């Protein structure tokens, strides 16, 4: 077992354990904090996969913006949320069965696929993944249209969010 594999296994255990805490803990502020642990684990995975730009974006956007937004929302809606009644639906065991079946189905489908245990090829020498990503995002033969549409979507969503949460006096 190589060093990278050990790091991967530790990260995977942290991701899955904290994800289970996110869906099962009673206190929602704690759930949001466990979500930060999960997101950080995913950032470590991006670093292992040589996607350095995405690792940084994961930390900055997901942990820095989205998780903090969650914590704000939980604190704003907290008054009676201090955990009156159960946190899970009555039929949660049925949902657990559905989740396990989903995992089983995905696993069964994937392990019949020929590329399942493929190993990664080494990077070509002198290959600059971040530079390639930047060029692909803005070149007309690449992904400039989805990139611009995503920015318009983000703008529209933020304007909509302000409108929905606005209180009229």
């Amino acid at each position: 077992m190589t060093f990278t594999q050990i790091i991967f296994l530790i990260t995977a255990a942290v991701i899955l354990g904290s994800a289970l805490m996110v869906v099962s803990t009673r206190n929602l502020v704690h759930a949001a904090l466990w979500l930060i642990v999960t997101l950080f684990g995913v950032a470590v995975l991006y670093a292992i996969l040589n996607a350095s730009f995405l690792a940084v974006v994961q930390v900055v956007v997901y942990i820095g913006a989205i998780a903090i937004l969650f914590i704000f929302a939980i604190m704003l809606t907290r008054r009676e949320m201090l955990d009156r009644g159960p946190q899970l639906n009555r039929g949660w065991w049925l949902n657990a069965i559905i989740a396990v079946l989903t995992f089983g189905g995905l696993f069964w489908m994937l392990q019949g696929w020929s590329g399942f245990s493929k190993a990664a090829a080494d990077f070509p020498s002198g290959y600059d993944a971040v530079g390639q990503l930047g060029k692909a995002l803005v070149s007309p033969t690449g992904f400039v249209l989805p990139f611009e549409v995503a920015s318009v979507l983000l703008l529209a969503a933020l304007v909509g969010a302000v409108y929905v949460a606005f209180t009229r006096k």
Partner: protein
Amino acid sequence: MIPLSWYLILSAALFSIGLFGVLSRRNAVAILLGIELMLNAVNINLVSFWRYGDVSMMAGQVFAIIVFAVAASEVAVGLALVISVYRRRNTVIADEIDLMKW
């Protein structure tokens, strides 16, 4: 070297945990937390397919970035809706938000 299967199994497990959270949590904010877990599972898949396929095709990473943008918009709108509902009806339990239920 890590085989591709490890990433795929991890992301399937993370997706299932997120699915469980979405289906069984009562609080609307906690449902959004489950959706975040599912989106992250999808992103792990996209980036690992980029790494294990042809690394000169950037589509995997670009799509992961689009998923980031969509996740940010979804959280902003979703939390604004939750806060707005909380102001009007004083609840964030998804079962009790039944204005449109006939």
